[in-house]
């Protein structure tokens, strides 16, 4: 089994919306993959069925079995990293073989304060459900592709 790694500049894991982030993708694989893909995506976690969407993907063609590439990408303006009682919105970077099972994920925070927005003790479940619906309407305005894990 090979290894994949994502190293972010200055070991940061929390960022402001629209910020430019950079880092290095590293891999040491047993096979010679056709391509590797670095994806920035959000996913939900909570009581309901999981949902997710890709914000951006960078493709590394013919990467060889061992190597590394520097990358940089602009974060989206939202949605912010969030946790309530019913739903969390989690942002991840994933480095994966384009047609394989090997993958690694690194969670990051996207928020104006660089901290996850936590609402579990501030609002009621019904209000949170309202926020969840607003979030889903918000994401519906963007052409996020469907992404299942």
């Amino acid at each position: 089994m090979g290894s994949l790694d994502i190293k972010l500049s200055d070991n940061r894991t929390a960022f402001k919306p629209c910020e430019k982030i950079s880092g290095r993708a590293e891999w040491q694989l047993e096979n010679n993959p056709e391509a590797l893909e670095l994806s920035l995506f959000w996913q939900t976690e909570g009581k309901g069925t999981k949902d997710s969407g890709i914000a951006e993907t960078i493709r590394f063609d013919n990467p060889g079995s061992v190597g590394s590439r520097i990358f940089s990408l602009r974060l989206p303006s939202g949605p912010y990293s969030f946790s309530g009682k019913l739903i969390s919105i989690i942002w991840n970077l994933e480095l994966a073989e384009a047609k394989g099972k090997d993958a690694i994920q690194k969670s990051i925070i996207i928020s104006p304060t660089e901290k996850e927005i936590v609402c579990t003790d501030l609002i009621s479940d019904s209000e949170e459900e309202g926020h969840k619906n607003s979030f889903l309407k918000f994401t519906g305005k963007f052409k996020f592709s469907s992404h299942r894990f």
Partner: protein
Amino acid sequence: MKARDNPFSAGRTESLSYRHNGMSKNGLLLKFRQLDYKAAIIGPKGSGKTTLLEELKRGLEDNGFIIHCVFVNDEKPLSKDARKNLFARLKKGDIVILDGADLLSKQEWRRFKSKIVKCAGGLLITSHRQDLLATLIECSTSPELFSELASHLAVGESHPSEELLNKIYAEHKGNIRNCFRHLYDMYADKQPAVNK
């Protein structure tokens, strides 16, 4: 408790593997072959039918079969377009997996089955009823199974008592999916949130 920390979140409960009680995965795949690749996984709601279906799907793919999945539920009936798209992609020897076959009307089911048998070859379904295809396995739950799964998910958290788990199991009439949702709500209210 934050949703992402809840041990009974959908992401965690959906990642549980099917607990075989009797026939193993390979035994079921062999039985499916003996039934000429046309069979049904039977059981009530929340008894693990879809979990087992996913496991058998991976097993069939590992054996080189091309699998086409169709998921039907109360909110998402089988549309004409979805049916047309499926039929257009089928090749001899493919296997169609249909989750929620008993939600099709009798007429829809007859047409669907006849088309799949003619164009593909294999059909594996889940159903609450036994009269659609030969039964591959009948899924069921028990308080012991629920207790084992709940303990597995709540590792590192305080465990609910056996008495409480038995009460929840009885309240939801053995529907383990609903039992997990019940536990989710209990854990969601467990701790005050702290903004780290």
